[in-house]
């Protein structure tokens, strides 16, 4: 880790933060609709993990994936346009907040069914193994996913078949309004993975340095052919689950406590030379541009609606 890298990571985290704050603003102006799940507070996880990947690796994420998409390098313009439902969006406006996709960066969603992405990630890793491609697949999900059967089926397959896959559990303590203690008899999630004989580690998900370093280690291990790795990142979402959430299930004080661990505060503590003002300045331009791009985007013609149901109807 050096200052350059610290700056890079800080920049990405701040981009996510400001981007999503802008999303909230645009949501209240009804420019953005549907569900909008914010990643604010959890930025260190996506940014730290993505840092460790190569452009050849594949990513599967959830409905809370703005952060992952930005960290992976999908252009903010295309993400904002997607949230606006415009044709220039990364999913042509068909996907929306929960379904960001991008072939160029191998970003496979934006899967909005809890655990729905895990089996596909397994399959992607299987294809890499069968084709003897030295690629890694990364799959992000919340701790709520651990209760779903698909989670267990997938972990077992990954372990059994020694697949090149990194599981990243974003343990933010709540699944919507249900606290982990109400959903798991064993609340140490990393132990679950270990029960499949998967190398597994619990890390501080508010510390981007720790996430980046653990991810690098994990990816190296996976690339060397040692099978899957599981990272449980302890983190917290500062905002409501979505735009419809009254937040009755947690104490304000708990939120405040976690805000002390804000990854955007944490990193500059170690790297005082990070020029925050300059980052803010740069990012503010990026966000403005994204909004402008989205505003100026076009609404796809209704005549094209039945495209993309089958490949033969895809205009390529």
């Amino acid at each position, binding site marked *: 880790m050096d200052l350059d890298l610290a700056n890079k990571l800080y920049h990405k985290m701040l981009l996510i933060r400001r981007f999503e704050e802008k999303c909230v603003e645009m949501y209240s102006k009804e420019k953005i609709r*549907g*569900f909008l799940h914010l990643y604010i507070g959890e930025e260190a996880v996506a940014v730290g993990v993505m840092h460790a990947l190569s452009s050849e690796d594949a990513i599967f994420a959830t409905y809370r994936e703005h952060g992952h998409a930005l960290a992976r390098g999908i252009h903010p313009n295309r993400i904002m346009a997607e949230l606006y439902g*415009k044709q220039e969006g990364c999913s042509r406006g*068909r996907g929306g907040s929960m379904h960001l996709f991008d072939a160029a960066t191998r970003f496979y969603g934006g899967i909005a069914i809890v655990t729905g992405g895990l089996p596909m990630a397994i399959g992607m890793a299987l294809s890499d193994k069968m084709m003897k491609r030295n690629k890694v697949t990364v799959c992000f999900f919340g701790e709520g996913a651990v*209760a779903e059967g698909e989670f267990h089926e997938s972990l077992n397959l990954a372990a059994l078949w020694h697949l090149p896959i990194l599981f990243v559990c974003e343990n933010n303590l709540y699944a*919507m*309004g*249900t606290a982990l203690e109400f959903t798991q008899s064993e609340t140490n999630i990393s132990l679950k993975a270990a029960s499949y004989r998967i190398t597994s580690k619990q890390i501080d998900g508010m510390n981007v340095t720790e996430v980046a370093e653990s991810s690098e280690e994990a990816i190296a291990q996976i690339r060397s052919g040692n099978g899957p790795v599981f990272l449980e990142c302890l983190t917290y979402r500062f905002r409501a689950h979505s735009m419809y959430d009254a937040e009755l299930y947690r104490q304000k004080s708990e939120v405040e406590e976690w805000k002390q661990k804000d990854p955007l505060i944490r990193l500059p503590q170690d790297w005082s030379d990070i020029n925050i003002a300059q980052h803010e300045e740069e990012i503010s331009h990026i966000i403005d541009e994204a909004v402008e791009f989205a505003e100026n985007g076009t*609404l*796809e013609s209704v005549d094209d609606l039945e495209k993309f149901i089958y490949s033969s109807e895809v205009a390529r």
Partner: protein
Amino acid sequence: MNSTITYREAVRHAIKQAMEKDQRVFLMGEDVGHYGGGYAVSMGLLEQFGSERIIDTPLSESAFTGAGIGAALGGMRPIVEIMTVNFSLLALDQIMNNAANLLHMSGGQFNVPLVIRMVTGGGKQLGAQHSHSLEGWYAHIPGLKILTPATVQDAYDMVTLALADPDPVLIFEHAMLYNNKGLLDTKVIPLSIGKAKIERLGKDITLITYGASLFKALEAAQTLSDEGIDIEVIDLRSLRPLDDETIMKSVAKTHRVMIVDEGWKSGSISAEIMARINEQAFYELDAPMGRVCTLEVPMPYAAHLEQAVLPQADKIVAMAKKIMEK
């Protein structure tokens, strides 16, 4: 109670009353407790009934739906809330292979008095994985009853009817209806399961619909009446069983039929209704029947695309005119 409340409040009130009256009734599902319900239906119930009877489940659709079946076998009257129909696919094995089969498979020994409620429908820009309308598809399964309350009164009545039923009943609450206001009279005897309701009398076309589409249909009927076309609007209320009698009577009067439903067109409940009218009232028909369904597209996010996919009053009007021309 006789007052104007929302659809959401009506469902909540029915659950609350049932739980007050009958210790065997309980509610279980994701976020029904501390969060107050994904669509805020159960807000406040945890405080009243405690976490033993308002159970926040983990994300385990298959297991907690199956647990509802088991609890019903054990003498309880569970209400399982599956947050939305989209997630019910994870529980389909329990619903079809167990809930729907047990009574028959056991030679009549084990009935399953289970109520499953779920949110259905599009219109909120939630995209392809969160906007399914699968109630008509569920109606294919023998052993189940499929209810689709459209009005505030039915939102209340159907919970009560379902809880009184000895067999598994699925209630599909359309997401767009929760804020609708209407009159609730808790004293009237509810129209029983399997009975459709004529919501508007008319003589030119029988329009059959259910759920949120009812209001689009009524709107279209209003427009059409201004243009001299008189539509009879039937709210099916129940997709399984279907009320053939009410349908055929109306067809015998109007001789023209259209169906509006929010399922994807091919294999929709509209198809089944057309098939039955063909079988039971073929000679009554003066023209081909028409249907306005959801286009066969995974639901797009963009508002204009989503609205183009869904049935709308203007499409209904156009279809009605086309039918009248024949």
